[in-house]
């Protein structure tokens, strides 16, 4: 069929459908929900996998992270206002990890120091992390300005620090922080560089939204000034904590060895710790978990989508069969006036496709709204790729073709003489 006459067929289909507006609208509902679920499914899946990818990028796909976790409070000792809690990863753990496993290439210890950071009147409470120069390389953090910690800083137990973007902006809103001095607790530190901030991954250990503000100082400096015993001020009470290391970042030589090293670390820690005062974060496992989430979403929404599309398609077919019967006479007239069978097939097929594509377009609109709502309410990232609406649109058109063929064929099969006689 030629272009203009095809357009005319489409226009005819639209005007035939507009004769029964409510019926047409109701008929499209199934396809509407089907296509919107397809888009929502793809958006949520895409968002979950993007989030997982980002976590991996931030934590390093070759890394295993060990963290100290304060064990559950014991109410028997909770009555004391001042006490010492000893927990967490120890220097021995660090030594064991770095010496035992051949697949481990680098091990970075991190200590957290509970001190306030000030610059003049401005104060904040970032995570103050005492660590080694290789920390930046292993975790893949990106330098914004200046330099990261250096071996020389460690050797001299220098009072230098590196700020994350967020801290730099807060303390030095109008100037470069480089070579400026800030106060951590009671001591002065010279700023030698800044790092780009990262969005904190929403793992169990660190809920999303927690501050990403960080200040890095040399490990030796931290140990020299603060030791392993620290006072943590809490609402109404002071707590003494004794923690050797808050975090150990273990880098392996290849991503394939991560599960092996993770299992070995887990076993090693289980053997040496009497209480569960540590946790293991394996970025690769986060990815697997995200993939699992994505898979479940795909199954749920995929089923909703296919069922709606199937039911929607059957609904459309049903209505079109009724329409064909209703318009038997019109079919007879058209045949008498020279319409070939394929003209009749085309007419009803186009009408069905117009119907389902109409539902599909409404579904695309709804499908673009759902991810926004999900993102706002469920705190899940969603990404609508341009291909998703396109795919949904094509699916709706496909539904129209598949479920329109039978009614159209039935219309075309009619005997013109019989059709003309039909009342």
């Amino acid at each position: 069929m030629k272009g203009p006459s095809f357009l005319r067929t489409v226009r005819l289909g639209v005007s035939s459908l507009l004769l029964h507006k409510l019926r047409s609208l109701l008929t499209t509902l199934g396809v509407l929900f089907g296509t919107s679920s397809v888009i929502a499914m793809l958006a949520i899946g895409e968002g979950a996998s993007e989030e997982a990818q980002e976590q991996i990028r931030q934590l390093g796909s070759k890394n295993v992270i060990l963290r100290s976790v304060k064990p559950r409070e014991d109410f028997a000792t909770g009555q004391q206002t001042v006490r010492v809690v000893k927990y967490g990863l120890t220097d021995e753990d660090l030594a064991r990890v770095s010496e035992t496993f051949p697949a481990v290439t680098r091990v970075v210890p991190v200590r957290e120091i509970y001190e306030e950071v000030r610059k003049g009147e401005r104060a904040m409470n970032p995570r103050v992390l005492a660590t080694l120069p290789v920390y930046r390389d292993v975790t893949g953090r990106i330098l914004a300005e200046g330099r990261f910690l250096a071996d020389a800083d460690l050797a001299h137990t220098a009072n230098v620090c590196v700020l994350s973007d967020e801290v730099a902006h807060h303390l030095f809103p109008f100037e470069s922080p480089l070579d400026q001095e800030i106060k951590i607790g009671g001591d002065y530190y010279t700023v030698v560089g800044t790092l780009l901030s990262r969005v904190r991954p929403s793992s169990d250990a660190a809920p999303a939204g927690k501050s990403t503000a960080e200040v890095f100082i040399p490990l030796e400096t931290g140990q020299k000034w603060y030791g392993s015993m620290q006072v943590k001020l809490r609402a109404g009470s002071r707590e003494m904590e004794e923690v050797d290391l808050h975090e150990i970042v273990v880098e392996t030589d290849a991503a394939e060895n991560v599960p092996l090293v993770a299992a070995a670390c887990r076993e090693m820690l289980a053997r040496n710790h009497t209480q569960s005062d540590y946790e293991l974060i394996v970025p690769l496992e986060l990815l697997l978990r995200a993939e699992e989430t994505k898979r479940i979403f795909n199954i749920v929404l995929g089923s909703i989508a296919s069922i709606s599309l199937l039911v929607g398609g059957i609904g459309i077919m049903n209505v079109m069969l009724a329409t064909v019967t209703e318009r038997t006479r019109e079919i007879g007239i058209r045949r008498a006036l020279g319409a070939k069978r394929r003209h009749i097939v085309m007419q009803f097929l186009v009408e069905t496709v117009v119907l389902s594509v109409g539902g599909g377009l409404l579904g695309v609109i709804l499908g673009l709204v759902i991810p926004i709502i999900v993102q706002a309410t469920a705190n899940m990232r969603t990404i609508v790729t341009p291909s998703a609406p396109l795919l949904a649109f094509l699916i709706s058109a496909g539904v129209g073709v598949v479920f329109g063929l039978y009614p159209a064929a039935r219309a075309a099969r009619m005997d013109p003489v019989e059709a003309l006689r039909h009342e």
Partner: protein
Amino acid sequence: MERGTRSKARSLLPVAELERVTRTYHMGANEVRALDELTFAFGRGEYWAVMGSSGSGKSTLLNVLGCLDRPSSGHYRIDGADVSQLTDDELSVIRSQKLGFVFQSYNLIPQLNVLENILVPLFYQDEPPAGAEQRARALAERVGLGERLAHRPMELSGGQQQRVAIARALVNEPSLILADEATGNLDSQTALEILELLDELHAEGRTIVIVTHEPDVGERAQHVLRLKDGRIESVVRDQNPARDSAAEDPSPDEVRQAGR
């Protein structure tokens, strides 16, 4: 006269020619012969009324003439070409190019307006003629509906709808116009107007076959073919010499239209 000689030359070849055409229907175990070895020719420019009681085979004849039905045996030729063994698609092409239909119940398409209804037959031609819309407008003008092009069939009276149907039957310049009880649903005054329109078309030299059971409709035609039990009962030629001579002596206006 110019028109007379031309129609005589062309009438050497009949528009529609039936040769021993039989159409049988199977009603359970019974075999019904709706047309029984019918041999007949409708000449060019002739205006025929086909009459007969119900069951005489006149509807079947119309369906065969209109290429809506195929003869069970025998041959049917339009403009000399045998169409009795054509496929469904080929018959559709014949219908869209050679035939114009006027039905008892007008059979306009309700969702289309007057202009679109007139254009429907051209819509199904592989090569729609240039200036189709102008032609449709001219035809609407011709049947007195030039002012109502955008109206839907529901907004028109029966007579007006039938005029649209006639304009539609003319839009593809058919060799043969088939009318099936074209006045059956109309009051006598409107029916008369429609019959006058058919007379005009005949005067222009068009070939018309009208199937009817109403005697006064049959009387207006040039020739009458009566059927009974699928066979020819009688043939009356030139039953209205006076009227026909009037048609043979057309007014200058009619000559102009016929010459188009």
